[in-house]
């Protein structure tokens, strides 16, 4: 067991012939990810990755011909939101979008479409998902992971690697690690991931890494307080980040405060999350939590 992806996930790579797409698809194949197709409009009929993967013009063809169920997107930012919509309309159940720099207006629309279609989106602007030893659907270094019983969910990229590294160093392997991205509009929230980990019997504890801005960590903590039976270790980056030079009041009115590190750490603690003051404590605190 694990969450979202496993060795049976049939993956289509959107943007497989671009430089990013080629590089990371090669890495994913080496990890054991079951890539069944690629999509690059205009290059349908060609073969990618040393003649091993068929390329289609559309995601729909990849779904029909190769029974792809999961998609990963390495498409430039100006086309990425449309790539998400295309995958969703083709009936893909899980879309991971790695692309950084997508205009917010495009994402607001894409989010509306995927919600209507019932597609699960992870990202954009994220490192992706790794189910250790089975499927890497992203750009993280696979070798830092070990198989085990800890789930990791994070807003950040390299900070996710740091958490995984620390867990592995104290002998705690991972089930699945997910970077959900830190953009204003993202497909999957921390709360949704906590729910999946709570329901996964193989996961015994969860590391949750947040940062300043937004309310997502607070909502996840409140959900965990009422619903989570497994220990959750939390860290919030940005205790020393200076308050930004603001413009206007609208942002503050909508978010309603409590979005700095201090407030988030307080709320997490109140909800029973084991909060790390220092990033260096993530591995140790999880080890202690499991021993208690």
């Amino acid at each position: 067991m694990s969450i979202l992806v496993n060795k049976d996930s049939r993956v289509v790579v959107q943007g497989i012939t671009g430089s990013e797409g080629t590089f990371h698809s090669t890495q994913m194949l080496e990890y054991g990810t079951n890539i069944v197709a690629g999509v690059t409009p205009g290059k349908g009929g060609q073969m990618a990755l040393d003649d091993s993967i068929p390329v289609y013009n559309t995601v729909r063809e990849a779904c029909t011909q190769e029974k792809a169920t999961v998609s990963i997107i390495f498409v430039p930012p100006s086309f990425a939101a449309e790539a998400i919509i295309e995958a969703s309309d083709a009936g893909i159940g899980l879309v991971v979008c790695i692309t950084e720099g997508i205009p917010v207006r495009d994402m607001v629309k894409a989010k509306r479409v995927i919600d209507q279609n019932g597609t699960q989106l992870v990202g954009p602007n994220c490192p992706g998902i790794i189910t250790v030893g089975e499927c890497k659907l992203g750009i993280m270094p696979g070798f830092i992971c070990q198989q085990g019983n800890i789930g990791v969910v994070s807003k950040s990229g390299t900070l996710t690697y740091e958490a995984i590294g620390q867990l592995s160093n104290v002998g705690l392997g991972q089930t699945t690690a997910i970077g959900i991205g830190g953009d204003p509009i993202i497909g999957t929230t921390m709360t949704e991931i906590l729910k999946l980990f709570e329901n996964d019997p193989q996961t015994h504890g969860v590391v949750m890494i947040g940062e300043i801005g937004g309310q997502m960590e607070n909502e996840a903590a409140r959900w965990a307080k009422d619903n989570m039976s497994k220990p959750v270790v939390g860290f919030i980056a940005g205790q020393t980040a200076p308050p930004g030079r603001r413009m206007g009041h609208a942002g503050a009115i909508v978010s309603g405060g409590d979005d700095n590190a201090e407030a988030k750490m307080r709320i997490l603690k109140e909800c029973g999350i084991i909060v790390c003051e220092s990033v260096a404590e993530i591995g140790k605190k999880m080890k202690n939590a499991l021993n208690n």
Partner: protein
Amino acid sequence: MKIHEFQGKNIFKHYGIPIQDGYVIENLTDASATIEKVQQEFNSKAVMVKAQIHAGGRGKGGGVKYCPTTKDALENVSNMLGMNLVTPQTGAGGQKVRKVYITEALDIQKEYYCALTLDRAKTKDVFMVSSEGGVEIEKVAEETPEKIIKVWIDPLIGMKIPQARELAIGLGLGERPLKTAITMFMKMYQCYVETDASLVEINPLVLTEDDRVVALDAKFNFDDNALYRQLDIAKLHDKHEEDPTEMAAKEYNLNYIKLDGNVGCMVNGAGLAMATMDIIKLAGGEPANFLDVGGAASAETVKNGFKIILSDDHVKAILINIFGGIVRCDRVANGVIQAVKELGLEVPVVVRLEGTNAQAAKTILSESGLAIVSAGNMQDAASKVVNAALEN
């Protein structure tokens, strides 16, 4: 990207949104002529003099003045041009005033608040208005949230007239101004969408004594990710409003923010960069900066990063913290060596490299013969760099 009030008002004007109009000047020599022009063109003896900086709360800092006579206007323009304006939103350092906007003065019956922005939690744009306009709107939102009327807009359908009507009725406007406000809100939404704005705020929106609805202010924020398709908007960027070092970092494709401490840091990834600053503080030091070198840290990026950090002469030690995923640590190590050789670093450098090719990188650094301190984990790295800064 932010713009000035007068630029925002020009956008409003283009969309047919009624504004409090005027002209902007940068030199004192243009003051008399411009004041006279505003008085004649808008038939307003009294004028407003408004400092143009990228921050709100200008009135509180003395950056917005009502001038009943030409003499008052001249005096205020001369005081404001070149002054360092400190407002609740600028930070303690304030912001230098390079442009002053001279506008008509209106007879105001009532002030309102209105704004369009993204509601991240609802993943939709939200249009908000309040009859309690003016400077204390955040207090209103906190204490009497029912006085802020909100409508959320379906991105696939766009804003509809009944929604605009709901907002206008919520302000308690009479028949004629109600119609103006509805049209105005529809145009505001159109303008927000078409310019890829992330914020359009009018505070205050006013009802004049002669029952006109007019935007007294205009705040815009634009989505940087969309500037590639908003070339006219991108041209409005005022480089003077940015910190010069932060601008230089941008040219190198680095994300840098200067802080007040003396421990410089260079990190890949924004989250890890913040966590590195936090652990420096926990170890008893003060971070001198935030610097995210991004996903493609090469020898060149590392060198540029050093240049940016060292342009701040408070820096007493530097910590490089790289967790290599796509980035290969051996390349970063070579970059560090090259930079140290070329720039002749005079402050101690602590390096912590983890992830892809970390072992090879450690060997490269230790065989370089340079006085670079290698660190094992983040705790170790933070203690070492804070000690180095104390000793230097």
